[in-house]
């Protein structure tokens, strides 16, 4: 027993700690930079009281600047609106597609599933060129709809695949039983399969929301007015002026921008773990 406990240190605790530090350090850096006053921020590394990892004079000035002098709150609301709608559209399509691909027998179901997956593999950096053309033709440039309607191009395949995997873990007897019990396929789907798939749906939703929240390229290309921008584009375009980086406010924007996602994750952590590992508790 003693030997086993001893072994947990080099093979479990130490690697785990290293991993946690590596993961959390960027967030720590973000917080420290946000709270650091400007005179400390631009102090050269060889100056006598150079303290890169902490600060003795924390200030909220950068956050204040961000909220008062920039359109940050507008960007936040834009991002929220776009992400929520894009997620809902993608979840809806993904749910129906995943159900059909995993449960219904029809010709070329497998091919279709693979086809959807391949569309997910087309890089956005390539796809934005034709999409820009489409957006212009529909006269949606510089509106939230440019993003709400283009984000599903990568979110739908993603949701479909995640949910397909989850549906496959739900015993088909549940649905068969419901259908013998008198439910039509629609009702069996609505009352039995979807409620049971809630962890999968939530995790697909969280990931889709995070992907839209953090999306950069489409937002950069399709939006140009500062009022219409999302956080990821707004912060980087308005707080980097020429070659001047407003590091403190940049980091404050990144920090505040990541708060909603962090909150959502912490609320649904159990669901999305279950969703990813695909366990239906009987």
């Amino acid at each position: 027993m003693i030997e086993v406990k001893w072994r947990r240190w080099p093979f479990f605790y130490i690697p785990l700690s290293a991993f946690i530090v590596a993961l959390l350090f960027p967030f720590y850096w973000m917080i420290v930079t946000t709270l650091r006053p400007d005179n400390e921020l631009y102090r050269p590394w060889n100056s006598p009281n150079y303290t890169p990892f902490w600060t003795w004079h924390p200030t909220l000035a950068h956050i204040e600047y961000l909220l008062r002098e920039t359109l940050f709150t507008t960007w936040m609301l834009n991002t929220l609106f776009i992400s929520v709608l894009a997620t809902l559209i993608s979840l809806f399509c993904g749910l129906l597609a995943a159900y059909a691909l995993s449960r219904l027998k029809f010709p070329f179901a497998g091919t279709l599933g693979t086809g959807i997956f391949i569309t997910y593999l087309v890089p956005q950096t390539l796809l934005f060129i034709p999409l820009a053309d489409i957006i212009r033709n529909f006269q949606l440039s510089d509106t939230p709809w440019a993003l709400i309607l283009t984000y599903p191009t990568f979110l739908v395949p993603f949701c479909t695949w995640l949910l397909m995997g989850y549906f496959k873990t739900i015993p088909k007897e549940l649905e068969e039983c419901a259908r013998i019990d008198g439910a039509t396929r629609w009702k069996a789907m609505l009352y039995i399969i979807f409620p049971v798939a809630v962890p999968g749906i939530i995790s697909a939703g969280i990931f889709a929301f995070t992907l839209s929240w953090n999306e950069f390229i489409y937002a950069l290309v399709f939006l140009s007015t500062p009022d219409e921008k999302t956080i990821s584009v707004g912060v980087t375009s308005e707080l980097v002026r020429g070659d001047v980086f407003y590091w403190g406010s940049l980091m404050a924007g990144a920090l505040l921008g990541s708060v909603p996602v962090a909150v959502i994750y912490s609320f649904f952590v159990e669901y999305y773990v279950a969703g990813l590992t695909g366990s239906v508790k009987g």
Partner: protein
Amino acid sequence: MAQVTIRHLNKQFDQIDAVKDVNINIHDKEFVVLVGPSGCGKTTTLRMIAGLESITSGKIMIGDVIVNELPPMDRDIAMVFQNYALYPHMSVYDNMAFGLKMRGLDRAEIAKRVRAAAEILGIQDHLTRKPRQLSGGQQQRVALGRAIVRSPQVFLFDEPLSNLDASLRVQMRVELKKIHDRLGTTAIYVTHDQVEAMTLGDRVVVMKDGVVQQMGEPLELYNAPANRFVAGFIGSPGMNFATVRLGEAEGALWVENEAIRIKVPSQIATRLRGHMDEWAVLGIRPKDLRVASNTDTADLSFEVEIEVVEKLGSEILLDVRAGASAMVAAVEPTIRAKVHDRLRLAVDVNRLHFFDHRSGVAI
């Protein structure tokens, strides 16, 4: 209540015959068990009756209605699955009420029926719980309850007891039988366990490779198996087989091989006349073998060597070798026997079975 008629039922999966020309008449209120090794087509047959599997050809009737094209919900059946298939997000009450809600019954009627079924099954205290909070046996009862509340025309059971541990399985088996006696609903039950089949079934259908081997009352299958497969499948421990040659000597008919030589009494001998001087398979149930005493004549017994002694308490199983064939004899627990002992086993000559050497059909 209804009879179920199955006519020339066939099912093919990708050109492979899963079910071949099955014909079964199930009477009203009857409890019929489909039994056979895995992959014999019993579950496929049941799923076709339920409407969960399409029919390649043939006809299934429930009552007077041909149900071939009816969706499961319109067949007025209830099914209990091997993994129970309880809806995990619903309470026990809602699980049982789901089918009634789908059929648009009013609240009071649903409550009445669910409570009545819960009482029959002794789960009235668990109605508010979720399935995962219940033990395996309780989950099984909920699955049964969900079938009972609907009072369907036919119950379908797909190996409902195989996920339970041994003692609970015996208990639930008895309970199932009682429930069936009480409700009198026609039931079709699929299992691979021949003990379940024998104890539950009014009639048992033995299947192998998609083909019905024999259909009959449990004792009929036990006493007069139609072929070697049924003989070996029904009964525990299974029937002993030995390849023997039929011959005539001293004015009587003898079956013999290098280790066995038995004189067949005249009333059985007439049956075997057509197979004279041919090889045949002799079948003897372990129960029909006993340690020979002084009164047993030499021509009704044969010598064996004991290989294993299994003391079960109520009886002793002797695993013995007689020439090329390994046999099991179920003998009195008072017998003193050791491994490597040689002794003579006498047969109950009226309970011998004979099968064609090639086709395996009973002679």
